[in-house]
């Protein structure tokens, strides 16, 4: 039996396949684009190929993420909040605060020592503090985001871009350039701004786990968060896949519970 989670996020779609012990067998990732269902099919195929999945073998699928309700071939749907908690707790089984910085939103999930969601926070509608914000500023500076992340490593200062609004922040960047601020410092400011927007969402506990594409692709973000918080900050391997992994684990648990219930009756 194979268990799969498909996480159709606003920017990337991810899929994870695991076995009945929760061991990961394969992963797939593609840009989401406009057709959620088609992308879900493709990303599932990619994960199957990675897992050497024997065509026709029984498989259970849980869909999650922004496009979760479009995946009509899934056996169930769960939010990315529940899936993040499940996926992260699977590899780090302790009470913690998960900070997931995605393409278009940021979520904070407080997980108890039993792995249950105690509380969560989703950022308000605007893009500040998300991947979309970073991409917008990179576009404004005519640079690749990865290049800016590199530059930021050598930046100095503690000045975050101050505006809540992505458009205002873009003009703030222009103003800083006009004033001749060093590009390294500017890049650092831009990442500090993401960190500031995230930190004002909640008070974190002493164990913090960072997930999502922004963290996975830009190690500077985790470095800056470490500078700001007292607690221990962990970035799990495959930090972009944690929700998809959680969905796969939920698929496994639901299946095993059903089997157990059936054998009991």
């Amino acid at each position, binding site marked *: 039996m194979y268990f799969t989670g498909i996480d159709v996020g606003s920017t990337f779609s991810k899929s994870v396949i695991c076995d009945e012990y929760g061991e990961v067998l394969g992963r797939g990732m593609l840009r989401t684009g406009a057709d959620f269902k088609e992308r879900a099919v493709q990303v599932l195929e990619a994960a199957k190929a990675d897992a050497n999945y024997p065509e026709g073998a029984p498989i259970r699928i849980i869909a999650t993420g922004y496009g979760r309700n479009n995946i009509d071939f899934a056996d169930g749907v769960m939010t990315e909040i529940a899936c993040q908690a499940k996926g992260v707790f699977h590899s780090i089984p302790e009470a913690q605060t998960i900070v997931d910085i995605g393409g278009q939103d940021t979520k904070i999930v407080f997980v108890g020592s039993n792995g249950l*969601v105690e509380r969560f926070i989703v950022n308000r*509608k605007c893009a500040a503090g998300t991947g979309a914000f970073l991409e917008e500023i990179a576009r404004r500076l005519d640079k690749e985001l990865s290049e800016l992340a590199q530059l930021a490593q050598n930046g100095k200062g503690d000045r975050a871009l101050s505006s809540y609004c992505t458009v205002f922040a873009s003009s703030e960047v222009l103003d800083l350039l006009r004033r001749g601020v060093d590009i390294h410092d500017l890049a650092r400011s831009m990442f500090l701004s993401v960190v500031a927007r995230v930190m004002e969402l909640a008070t974190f506990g002493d164990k913090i786990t960072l997930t999502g594409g922004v963290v996975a692709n830009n190690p500077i973000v985790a470095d800056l968060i470490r500078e700001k918080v007292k607690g221990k900050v962990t970035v799990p391997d495959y930090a972009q896949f944690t929700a998809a992994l959680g969905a796969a684990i939920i698929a496994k648990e639901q299946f095993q519970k059903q089997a157990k219930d059936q054998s009991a009756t």
Partner: protein
Amino acid sequence: MAEPKIKKIKSTVKMKEILADYFRELDEASRTGSKPIAWCTSVGPAELLHSLGFLVHYPENHGALLGATRESVEYIPKANAIGYSPDICSYLTSDVGACLAGKTPLRAAYNMEGVPKPSVLVYNTNQCRDVEDWFQYYARNWGVPIVGVHTPRGLTEVDEPLIDNIAGQIENLVEPLEKIAGTKFSAERFSEVVGLSRRTTDLWWEVLSCAAKVPSPITFFDGTVHMAPAVVLRGKSVANEYYETLLEELHDDIEHNKAAVEGEQIRLYWDGMPIWGKLRDLAMFFISQKTNVVASTYCNSWVFKAFDAADPFRSMARAYTELFICRSDYYKEDYITNLIKEFQCDGILFHDARTCPNNSNNRYGMPERMINDRGIPAVVIYGDLCDLRCYSEEQSRLSMEAFLEQIRQGK
């Protein structure tokens, strides 16, 4: 998956009739000038106005109608364009915008000529300052007299000196209102109206209390519709007759175990304004999640337990000052906690309405206190009463679904 079905409430037919009669009478008076019309804020001194022979129009009711028909989205920008900010009350901006456009949903819904023309504008700032600013717009532009009661807010205790003050302010309205209405104040008639209002609000509370039953025969979304008589017809015997009919139906549902949400599993408390343009979508969403929103601050806001026909001025002052919206967070948190217990709710959903800080109780740390100090699960969704530009369907849905998953995992 089959579309979830909303359980029909049969009495709705009767409610529509009495509301149609109410609007017909207003329209007739507006066309012919046969009776004076007062515009009144939803928790303003309506009983006094009725006793003086005014017909009463409630602009907030019009705002809700603009929101529910989603016409607000078209009119709000017109008010924004003349300087009324998109950040202030979207009832105000919807209503003023509709006026600027010369439009009203009352025409299509009740065949009215337009919004009833006021002889006087009467407000109470117990709920917010926006109502005064709103009425001032019409006072300035139409030269209509405006009077009001100024009530302090953020109250933990409602003490006697405060009641003296508010009762005094209401008494001071009598003389100018007599002049406008061309009638003489009758203490007897006033006391009679206050008595009728008390009956209306007692019956309305009985209706809401039906939702304390498990499973509940009624939802918050039903409540936002069926509260109309408590809002616009309180103090009239038709409202009381209506609620008696509705109660009979609900008691029958309870007796036969008829649930408003089939297979009800989760029960929630809603704090904050309704999202008028999304009522149906939200009702369907919760049905699909086997969840019933059984209690709310909003629907309870028209329960005035203080009304006393024997002491009309002071009891009215008390009723309109001890409202939830005028109170401190200490009071509000106790109030909500008691209702959550009484209605056996699993959690509380706060609606942060962008343009109504007065009804957005999440903004000063209340959800955190509910969770941390009282162990009540809470979630916040961001939207608005009328301005759907402030509402993100996807983000709200994610928060609500995740919240229900969170509650289910603990069950």
